[in-house]
């Protein structure tokens, strides 16, 4: 608050300086008091007028020296709040209004900041940040696109080997590119040898977490391998059935996806160490 008071004092001094030449030429204290801001308010007591007059007239005697002296005196006058009680009541009420406005500003500003912090804290709650299921449209979009991506990325037809590379180029990003290559290198080689067709179908999926542009999906998929070269093997490595319809294996994996250019791309594949 003291800064505001300084402000008011400085303003008053400036006004006093402005009217100084006029006061000097007229050589009368009356003209000073009539143009002083305090005289315009009806609440002003005669005591204040006298003080302003005296201050104004002394100011006419010396110029620069008085400003500093004036500042010192006003400062010392402002410091003790109790001692000031009397002159405050006598002086115009405008400073009080300003003080109240300032206090109100601080209070309102403080409340605004506090409420904003509260709202932010609520939103930053991890449970709320995760919009899986709470944002149904996004959840089903992620599920659908991830299932399609997994179907394509883990299916392989030895007669169309380029399709896998194409799918990888379209659907993968980041470290998933390497992960996918490592995962499928073996499968690919075996499928080529056995002239097999590996088909992966997602049977169940659920979105674990959506955090803005990132999401993690748990996927259960079935893989079938149909060979035409005689003996078949499931891509998972289990060689049990050797029927012509093929071999089925269940797989589970967690897929990280990122939203890019309106599509969800696979950025990580977690096979839980298998």
């Amino acid at each position, binding site marked *: 608050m003291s800064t*505001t008071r300084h402000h008011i004092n400085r303003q008053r001094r400036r006004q006093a300086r402005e009217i100084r030449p006029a006061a000097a030429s007229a050589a009368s204290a009356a003209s000073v008091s009539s143009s002083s801001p305090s005289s315009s308010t009806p609440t002003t007591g005669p005591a204040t007028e006298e003080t302003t007059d005296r201050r104004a007239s002394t100011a006419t005697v010396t110029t620069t020296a008085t400003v500093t002296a004036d500042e010192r005196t006003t400062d010392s006058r402002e410091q003790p709040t109790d001692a000031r009680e009397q002159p405050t009541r006598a002086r115009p009420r405008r400073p009080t*209004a*300003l003080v109240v406005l300032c206090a109100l500003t601080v209070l309102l500003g403080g409340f605004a900041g506090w409420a904003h912090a*509260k709202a932010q804290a609520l939103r930053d709650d991890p449970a709320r940040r995760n919009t899986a299921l709470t944002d149904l449209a996004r959840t089903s979009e992620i599920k659908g696109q991830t299932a399609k991506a997994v179907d394509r990325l883990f299916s392989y037809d030895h007669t169309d080997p380029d399709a896998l590379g194409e799918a990888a180029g379209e659907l993968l990003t980041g470290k998933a590119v390497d992960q996918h290559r490592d995962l499928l290198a073996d499968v690919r080689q075996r499928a080529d040898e056995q002239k097999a067709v590996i088909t992966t179908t997602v049977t169940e999926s659920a979105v674990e977490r959506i955090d803005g542009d990132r999401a993690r999906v748990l996927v259960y998929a079935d893989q079938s391998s149909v060979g035409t070269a005689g003996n078949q093997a499931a891509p998972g490595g289990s060689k049990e059935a050797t029927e012509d319809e093929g071999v089925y294996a269940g797989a589970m994996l967690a897929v990280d996806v990122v939203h890019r250019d309106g599509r969800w791309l696979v950025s990580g594949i977690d096979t839980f160490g298998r």
Partner: protein
Amino acid sequence: MARERARAVSRVLAGDRPRPLAALVLALTLVAGGFAVWAGQDWYRAAHDDRAAYAAQRDEALAAGEQAVQNLNTLDHRDLQHGLDLWESSTTGELHEQLVSGRAEFAEQVEKAKTVTTARVLSGAVTELDDRAGRARVLIALRVTVKASDGAASEKDSRMLGELTRTKGQWRLSALGQAPVGGASAG
């Protein structure tokens, strides 16, 4: 107060005696007031967001589901009664009844086999959640380790599908099974 402000406003508007300080303070107060109203509304909306309650239920259901599935895949033949008690307390509905009715028989089998089964949840997610009805479906990827009496351990991954029902404010497992492999042709 209001009169003071009105007077200050009229004085500023009239312009007969420019009072930049008063105008500035008044403007600041109004801006602060605007911010306060906006922040207050924002806070109220954040605190009364329906999705927050739904998200909390989802996380609660998942946590309960993961714990229950882990419990039901954990059993030590040396501490059978405690383990089976845990099974019963984790479940409700039909699954609970099945466990209770088959308890004696099952205990005998495990006693004979002397196996120690432990499970670890690898990952889990909720597929469906009906907040009002108190029903949820979860997918839980599980790694089960079975230690036989001779000390040989075997690991097996399970793709679990669970159904949860909320009873007395608690989510409990009401159905549990493995995701079928290969659809119809795999049998």
